[in-house]
């Protein structure tokens, strides 16, 4: 990734707090879902935001497209401040940035057939004639691996994977340049998940899309993304290129996350201990470094002073007071055992045969 590439989407110290309203029973607690996030996504890359439940990644995804309003801070899409745009201009811009939801069933209107669902964004964002819209719907269905005649069916007639394909077709209808997927594959079975991941990669290539993927599954992130931001309790704690992040994570939280992934190789157990304790409540985040309550490297400074996301090495950022000392103690090197020759040989045969006779998959 070239640093001179123009960012397509940037946030500047964006925060979103929930609650704190003065209701009839007194004021509710303030949840700091996203607390001062500054990121910059370059055109053409796949940028991933990873974290555990409650870290604010889904809130951040919605803020990026201004599906919800920030409490403070700005989002720039190709240099335009989204918060200053009048509603009409924002609506026009929406054609260029689309969202894919986790659960395709709850995001598709069950009373509309698939053709109407995919046509809807065309009605809003284009002035195509009815015949051209129908042709475009058919084209989109084929692009996402469905059949043109599926347009007459309803969402309930499809499997989870097929519904996700419909959701993707709908997102693609307005010719976006940016797609934000909030856990786009986590509701799907492994084999179907692989189909959708491949589809997203193919579409990205074909249409020159920029992808922002929000996920909790680190293996999916590793496979799909160019750069990763790791979030913990509303803040980005580490940001790096994917290979660097996974081969030698710097932040103790990232290290723990990567070590926690169960590796599909029997007898493999990464060195080091698993994290103790639960994620603290975002209503009352710990003082200083928010990770200090679970961090194995904690010192008194961590409880007092909040670390800021600073440049650590080339193109990588980390928010930790002690990252240098931790690295000096020994870089964590994550090694994944290779499959045995027998497994490798059969997997290769499987791959060769499954692509040879491959028809368009209708999942």
């Amino acid at each position, binding site marked *: 990734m070239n640093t001179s590439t123009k960012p397509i989407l940037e946030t500047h110290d964006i925060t979103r707090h929930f609650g704190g309203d003065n209701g009839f029973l007194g004021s509710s607690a303030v949840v700091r879902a996203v607390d001062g996030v500054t990121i910059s996504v370059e055109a053409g890359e796949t940028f991933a935001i990873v974290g555990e439940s409650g870290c604010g990644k889904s809130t951040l995804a919605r803020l990026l497209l201004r599906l919800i309003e920030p409490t403070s801070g700005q989002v720039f899409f190709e240099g335009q401040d989204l918060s200053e745009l009048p509603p009409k201009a924002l609506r026009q811009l929406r054609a260029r940035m689309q969202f894919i939801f986790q659960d395709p069933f709850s995001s598709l209107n069950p009373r509309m057939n698939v053709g109407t669902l995919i046509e809807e964004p065309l009605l809003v964002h284009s002035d195509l004639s009815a015949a051209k819209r129908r042709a475009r719907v058919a084209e989109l269905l084929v692009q996402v691996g469905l059949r043109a005649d599926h347009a007459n069916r309803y969402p309930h007639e499809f499997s989870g994977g097929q519904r996700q394909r419909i959701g993707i077709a709908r997102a693609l209808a307005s010719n976006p340049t940016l797609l934000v997927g909030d856990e786009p594959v986590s509701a799907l*079975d492994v084999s179907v998940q692989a189909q959708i991941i491949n589809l997203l990669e193919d579409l990205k290539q074909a249409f020159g899309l920029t992808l922002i993927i929000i996920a909790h599954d680190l293996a999916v992130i590793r496979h799909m993304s160019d750069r990763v931001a790791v979030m913990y309790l509303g803040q980005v704690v580490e940001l790096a290129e994917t290979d660097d992040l996974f081969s030698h994570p710097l932040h103790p939280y990232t290290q723990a996350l990567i070590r926690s992934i169960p590796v599909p*190789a029997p007898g493999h157990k990464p060195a080091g201990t698993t994290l103790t304790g639960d994620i603290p409540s975002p209503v009352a985040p710990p003082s200083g470094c928010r990770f200090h309550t679970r961090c194995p490297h904690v010192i008194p400074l961590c409880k007092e002073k909040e670390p800021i996301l600073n440049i650590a090495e080339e193109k990588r950022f980390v928010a930790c007071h002690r990252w240098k000392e931790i690295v000096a103690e020994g870089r964590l090197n994550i090694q*994944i055992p290779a499959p045995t020759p*027998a497994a490798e040989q059969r*997997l290769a045969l499987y791959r060769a*045969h499954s692509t040879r006779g491959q028809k368009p998959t209708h*999942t």
Partner: protein
Amino acid sequence: MFPDVIDDTMTPSAKTAPAGTRQDTHGANILEVAHLSVSFAGVPVNVVDDVSFSIAAGRTLCLVGESGCGKSVTSLAVMGLLPAKVARIAGGTALFQDRDLLTLPRLEIEKIRGDRMAMVFQEPMTSLNPVFTVGDQITEAVRRHRKVGKPEARERALEMFRRVRIPSPEKRLDEYPHQLSGGMRQRVMIAMSLANDPQLLIADEPTTALDVTIQAQILDLIRDLQRETGTALLLITHDLGVVAEIADDVAVMYAGRIVESGPVDAIFNDPQHPYTLGLMGSMPSIGPKTGRLTTIPGSVPPPQALPPGCRFATRCPFADAHCQQNTPPLQHDARGHGWACFKAPLELHLAELG
């Protein structure tokens, strides 16, 4: 507590052995399921078809497969929890302490369930009663099966909370489920399930709803507790990573049948069935990226569209007309590694074809 019997010769399935043959390992087997078939009303084929496996004390068998493969139905059948209106046991036996769980009267199986045989489900919030404290719920579980007073039962609950490493256990006993985090709730469920020293623990996706750092804690906990108690564990999961971490033996299910089974090393290091290979290829790796993911084309056909022969034939890249029409038997080698495929080992069969 139970003797910590670990028998390396145990095989998870014994289809090739005639039913009723008592193997040398029999004494160690806690659960022996043989030729289990389950049918659902209105479904033309068995949703679980001729499934056999066994688990010895202190061992872990993982049932792996994707949604709808019958792994949960198999476990519900063993626990006697299948809804009687729609599901029917179409055949087979499930021997537990020399009694067939599939034919036990309801009252008898209720005595075993929660006592000798316990369960942990995926979503602890729906398994815990929201209007009672977690301490009361464990106390009740103990008193349901043991003639003890409330103070002793509560003492036992406290002991179990310490065993599952819940911080400040005395305080937590008096909390309600909604006051606990997902990981804590799952610890409570495990504490409750182990409170009566079960010989068999059935866990259906126990870590699927949890975050990855919490999942690692719970898997460690399950492994430690199993080492201490010698409980046999039947773990149902879709995650091959979890399988590699915790299983001794594995049974891979597809569309209601076991397609491959055996010791965990054999399954991962010497996979035979094309479905097992497809599953492994579909999983993104946390190692360096190696290109596109391998996929299994299409999706599981609806029951009425299943082919008469091998049920994977509609999606298998190697299947031919013979596979469509004939059911491959699950045959085991000397290590207890078995697979149900006419084309395995793939390299040999494909070489024959040229």
